[in-house]
Structure formats: C-alpha cells, structure tokens
C-alpha cells in the first residue's frame, strides 16, 4: 500500500489563518526573545502546530555587515552541494550549526546552519548587479535548485529568521531565543488549512532583510504572483507571505517607492474614496492604482513587515483581519490581539486598531542607530 503524497508548500498554494505579533524599540534598545515568545504563546489557539517562527533584528551586531544565511538541510546529503554553491558565490566569514534545544514538541528537525557571507567581488562585478540583487538571486537559485531539500530561510544583514513546524512558543524555546537580543522581534503562529506543514513553509518569510509575518488569505494571489514573476521573482512556496514579501521588495527596491507608497499600492483606497480627495492626493492614488494595478492585494490580510531599522503594520483595504497596535514609551507593539500586547506590557500609552488599509510604520529614531 502506498501512502498518498500530501503536497507541500510550493507544490500547491497554501492559504492559512494565523497569529502575528511584533515588538519594536524605536530607541534601539535591545531585548531578548523571551517577551515575544510569551506574546505569541498567548494566541496559541490561533495556530495549530503546523508552523511557527520569529524574526529578530539587530541580533548579529558582530557580523552586521554580512548577510546571515539561515539554511535548512532537510536532506543532509544536500549540505555539501549547497555549501559549494555558497562558496562559489560568496566569501564566508563564519559558519556553523544554529544552536537548538532538544524538545519533545519538536520532531523531524532538519540540519539548521548559519553562514555570514559577502558576495565574492569578482562574481559580483561580472554579474553587473548590485550586491542585494546579487544575493537575492543566489538565494532564489538555492531554493529553486535544491527544491525543498535545502532551503535558505533567512538572508538579511544583522537579522535572522527562526522557524519550525510546531507551535511558535515551542519554536522560540527550541531556538533558545532568550540568548539573542534585538531591537525588533516579530512572531508568527500558523494555522494552515491544507498542508501538513514543513519547516521551510513556516513563517516569517524573508528576503534579504525583509521578513513578513502574515495573517490572512489573499484572493488576488495569482494576479499578484503572475505580475511579480515578470520581474524575476519566483514564487516557489506559493504562500501569501512569499508574494507579499516580493511585492514590497519589488516596489521599494526595484521601483524605488517608499514603504508608505508601497502600502498605498497594495492596500489602495477605493475609487469612491479617491474621488472625494483633494486634487493632488487624488492624482497620487489614481497614478498608483493605474500604474501598479496588478499589485493591489485583495482579500483578508494583516501583516507585520520587518526591515532593517523599521517595522510596518498593514491591513487589507476592507479590514477583514484583526490587528491592534500600541505604544509604550519608545516601544511599539503590534499583534493580532490586544491581549498579546497587554500580557507583556500591561501599561500602554496608546492602543488603537488601524483603519482598513492604513499603514503604521515604526522606525529607529535618528540618534539611536546602535543597530
């Protein structure tokens, strides 16, 4: 009797419901992963054990100029081949297995490695690409080439993604996140509806320093995917998070839009609203909607986008998914539920639910560039 193959991310499109949470210190203060684990743990019932993960920013100060690749080797025999590829394209400053804790809740763990790298000068020059594009393309190559046997799941500078096929609080303890200190943390608990879950498919999803945690199921997926794929992206995981990440990457890195402008593309106001705006705003939104029509995101989502030096919270244009943000002193919080913030910071200066499609962005204050 042959068992039926249950398709994984990348083989089919995976929508899912979820919990997300984020902490951001505008003054650059760093904290370890303990509070973000507690916050996401509270929303245990919003995930189902088929995926959890974290992204921390400012966690590798000693290697802050290097791209930190986190790689799953789901089949150990692919490690050599993958490392050959990395060496072929990059100078490796440091490499080693990421430390984890043995836990009964975490099973089938792959080999998990970390590499601090910089592009080889010669290769970079001959590619005629900028450093980020070069690195991004190499990441795509590995993920495509080794097709879920080896997967790069984190590739930014001075940041790192930690994820696994389990409940998020278990994932946090598994990776011993209390040993890392960052000025920003995001977390994700996953509730996929049609996948057994696999390590590479857990969230956050990241590309370079962009990491996204996402709660929702976007109905514009294929329209968005087919558009960004024209610009060199390959949506190999077929998840919303992946395509949202690429959209932001494309709009900001390739089209040169600001993050705010990118948000106005993906969660554009309705025409009925635009028509009532003053002329310059009307022209601005009309331009964005006409020009980037295929990157409008439809359907329910709330996302926390982490990036170097900032954090963005954004919901869909109809506000079909919950999202609460809060401030306490210079610390900014965002989570699917207010309780997940109150648990770790009972006293808050301000708590609010952003409007449909409204982007809330927190950035490091100028004087606090310790990251």
């Amino acid at each position: 009797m042959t068992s039926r193959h249950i398709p994984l991310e990348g083989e089919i499109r995976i929508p899912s419901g979820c919990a997300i949470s984020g902490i951001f210190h505008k003054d650059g203060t760093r904290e370890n992963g303990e509070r973000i684990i507690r916050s996401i743990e509270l929303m245990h019932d919003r995930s189902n054990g088929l995926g959890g993960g974290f992204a921390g920013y400012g966690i590798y100060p000693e290697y802050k100029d290097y791209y930190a690749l986190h790689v799953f080797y789901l089949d150990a025999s692919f490690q050599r081949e993958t490392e050959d590829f990395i060496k072929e394209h990059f100078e490796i400053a440091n490499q080693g297995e990421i430390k984890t804790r043995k836990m009964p809740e975490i099973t089938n763990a792959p080999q998990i490695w970390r590499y601090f790298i910089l592009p080889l000068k010669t290769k970079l020059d001959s590619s005629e690409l900028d450093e980020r594009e070069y690195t991004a393309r190499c990441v795509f190559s590995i993920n495509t080439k080794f097709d879920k046997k080896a997967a790069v799941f984190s590739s930014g500078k001075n940041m790192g993604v930690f994820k696994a096929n389990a409940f998020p609080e278990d994932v946090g303890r598994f990776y011993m996140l209390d040993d890392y200190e960052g000025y920003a943390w995001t977390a994700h608990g996953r509730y996929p509806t049609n996948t057994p879950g696999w390590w590479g498919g857990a969230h956050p999803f990241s590309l370079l320093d962009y990491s996204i945690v996402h709660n929702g199921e976007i109905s514009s997926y294929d329209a968005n995917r087919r558009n960004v794929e024209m610009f060199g992206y390959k949506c190999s995981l077929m998840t919303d998070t992946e395509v949202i990440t690429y959209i932001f990457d494309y709009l900001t890195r390739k089209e040169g839009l600001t993050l705010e402008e990118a948000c106005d593309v993906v969660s554009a106001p309705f025409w009925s609203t635009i028509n009532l705006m003053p002329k310059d705003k009307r022209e601005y939104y009309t331009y964005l909607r006409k020009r980037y029509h295929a990157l409008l995101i439809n359907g329910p989502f709330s996302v926390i986008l982490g990036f170097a030096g900032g954090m963005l919270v954004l919901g869909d244009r109809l506000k079909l998914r919950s999202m609460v943000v809060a401030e306490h002193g210079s610390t900014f919080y965002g989570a699917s539920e207010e309780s997940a913030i109150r648990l770790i910071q009972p006293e808050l200066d301000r708590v609010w639910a952003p409007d449909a499609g409204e982007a809330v962005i927190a950035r490091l204050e100028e004087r606090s560039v310790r990251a």
Partner: protein
Amino acid sequence: MEQGKIYLSPEHEIVRDNDKCIRCQVCERQCANKVHSYDESIDKMLANDENCVNCQRCVSLCPTRALKIRRCENRFRENNNWNETKIRELYLQANSGGVMLGAMGTPLDYPTYWDHMLINASQVTNPSIDPLREPMETRTFLGKKNQKAERGADGRLVTRFNSPQIELDVPVMFSAMSYGSISYNAHESLARAAAELGICYNTGEGGLHEDFYQYGSNTIVQVASGRFGVHGEYLMAGAAIEIKMGQGAKPGIGGHLPGRKVGPDVSRTRMIPEGSDAISPAPHHDIYSIEDLRQLVYSLKEATAYTKPVIVKISAVHNVAAIASGIARSGADIVAIDGFKGGTGAAPSRIRDNVGIPIEVALAAVDARLREEGIRDEVSVVIGGSIHSSSDVVKAIALGADAVYIGTASLLALGCHLCRSCHLNKCNWGIATQEPDLIKRLNPDWGYKRLVNLVSAWKHEIMEMMGGMGINSIEALRGNHLMLRGVGLNEKELEILGIKHAGESI
C-alpha cells in the same frame, strides 16, 4: 452564371395555427422578406416558406401567438457524412458558381472553452464580499502601464501618466460594427449606451456619423484597410484609435459593404460615392510587416499628438501569441484579439467556419507569452469573439484579459434574433439594414436602455462573482488563474489555458 433550376425545399417552414390566427396581418406588414400574405378569397394568411430566414419577427409580434417557425422536416436521405447543410450548399454552389456567404459568428459546434471553466468562491478561510454592502470596483484603465516611477525635485512621486488611457466603468466594450453594416439607430443606441455606462463603443471601419461626435469620449474610432471615413477630426474625436488588422470571423480577408447599403448618409460618413461598393482590402497595403505597423501606430499617435491610445486588433490565428508580442513592441497601447467565433456582417462561410482559433486559448497564450517576455504591462489586452454572459467576462478577466468586446451580445440586446442574414439588408429588426422603413424598427430610445440594462446586469453579476471570490477590485481578478478550474479538458488544453483541473487544490 446560374445553371438550371434548383430544387431545394425551404430551410424553414411557417406553422400557423389557424384557430388562433385573427388575420390581423401584422406578420405580413412586418416581414421584409414577403413571406406572409393575406388571401381574401379564402380569408386565410398564406406563407411563402422559401423566403423565410427565421428571424422570428413575425413570431415575436403575433399577438395571439399563432405562429412558429420550424426547420423544414423534409430531409435528404440520412447521411452522417454528407449532412443536410453540406449537400444543400453544394447544390447552391453548383447552381451559382459563387462563394457561400454568411453573417454573424460560426454556427458550427466547436468547443466553447468558457463552458469548460469554472469560477472559484470563498468559504470560511477568506470571507466573500457582499457587493450590496461593500464597494466593488470594476473600473478599468486600458493602455500602457510600463512607466518607470519618477520623482520630482521635491522628492515627490510624479503622478502624471505618460501614456493615454481609456477609462471604463466596467471592462466591457461594444465591439466594432460599422455604420453601413448596421443602421444609424443601432449606432445611436450603442453610442448612447456607452456614454451612459461609462464604457466605449467602436465605430468599426465605416467612419463616424456627424451626429455621434458628441459621444466621442465613449467612442473608439477604427482605422481599417479601406480607410473609410478617416480624417484628422475623426481621429481626434474618439477616446482611442483602433487599427483593424483582422477580424475573428474572417481572418485574412477584407470586407465588402454592398453598394445598396451605401445611401447618402453612409456615403458622406465613409467618404465614398453613393451606391458604390465599399471594399476593404485583405491587408493594409501600407502594412506588410511588423515594422510597417509600427509606422502606422506612430503616424496615428503623431496625428493625435500622443493623446489617444492606439489599439491594434487582430484575429486569433495560430501564431497569435508571437504576433501579439510583436504588437506590444510596436508602440501600440492595447492589443485586441478577436476569436474565430466572432460575428460579422458578412463573410465567406468557409472562412468564418474554418479559419482561426478559439479566443480562450488565444487569450491564454497571448497573456502567457507577454508575461514570459515581461511585457504584459506594455499593452492592455482586450478580447472578443463570442462573449455570451457575465461569467464569460469574469473568466476572460481571470484568464488575463483587461477588458472584453461584445458584439453579437449587444446586437441580441437590440433585438437581433441571429438569423444570420445581415448581408441581405433586410433586417426585420432594424439593425443590419439601411432601408428607412426597417431602420425605424429600432427605436434607440429603448434600444440604448436595453444595452444599458444588459451591461448593468452583467456588471451586477460580475460584482457578485467577484465578491464570491473575495475580490473587491477587478485588478485582483485580472490574470488570476487560480480563480479558474477546468472541467472536461485534457492535459494539453489545461496547460495552454494555464489552469488546473477542477478538484485540484488551490
């Protein structure tokens, strides 16, 4: 030259229920083909079946429903190889030595892929959206979307759009039907409906009657191989200019408006002598290559100071994807593809029934090709050729079209009963005719309302289907192949259409 007598039984026969007939003679007065007549000596209505084209005018207007028209039951000896139509046409050709002519789209039973695609809807994980409660956006812009983001000196985004666009309230337009092939009142209905609906209609190749310049912002003016009625003012009059390279119903051949349809108004509008046949050559004689096309595109842009988007319309032929790619790189703003089931005022039946490819596969192929080449945003894609309903529109958009053209559907809304006799100039519904007493049968005051109703109804249905999919803006549907599933299609068809089979997960 006609040879001998032809013995063919009529195609249709009039069945009159004499118990119901009240001899009001409405049928007689309404039949331009002179089928019905009243014989006083026997106090009966008689019918000359041979003249009947089965346009259903008499049936529709008979106040006591005493009439029906059925296929003549007389049959040649049964033969699945040489069927009735084939034998009949062969006899006719043997008799006349002529080319078989037909109108409207092919009546043959080729697959309709729309009917083999099903649309998705949201359940649980993603809420459907109620268009009665939430905004549901169908506004569509046609034109190039390839502009690089630029910033002014103040760092702000430049929001001026370089390429002219057509703005549509709903991604449906009335396809090209020339004044001449259809009546003044049909044109007026289309123009007024387009204006009220916030969409566009298309002049076809017959020029623009002076009365309709007022609807210019809802008009696409066509430039075809005959160049009828084309002048500077005409080009500036519309919202866009369409270069007609081909027509789905008759790829590779030109057009012919018989002189009897060229009355004073048509003559003035087309700028040809009254009573003369209007012949459109098969190719544009200044376009023998893609680079020639580029010259015409830019000539038209120059002539209109780059204020009008240029559409290039082609028939869906075997190599359509590559041709569309060439057009996308020719400077055209929009490529329109007309499927082989598209309608026509008159075409050689053999061509109509045997040349070209279905629009669904043409669209999928073109869209995929443009994306592969990364030039999908260089052009908008408009398709036509047998869009029957709002679900076809939804499927077309999901398959990758920006908008659709409807021709036959719009004529049906105006009363056309698809008798496929447009070329005879005796349209009993006042649509495809230039006879004054027949033209008046189409009152544009209600004709335009029927078109408005049709498109409004479709818009409602489109919004319902979009809402069901959890989509509230048409751009999120465009090219969204995951919203489609095939049924009863083979692997190859699914591959070309770029969709999964029903039952496969998302």
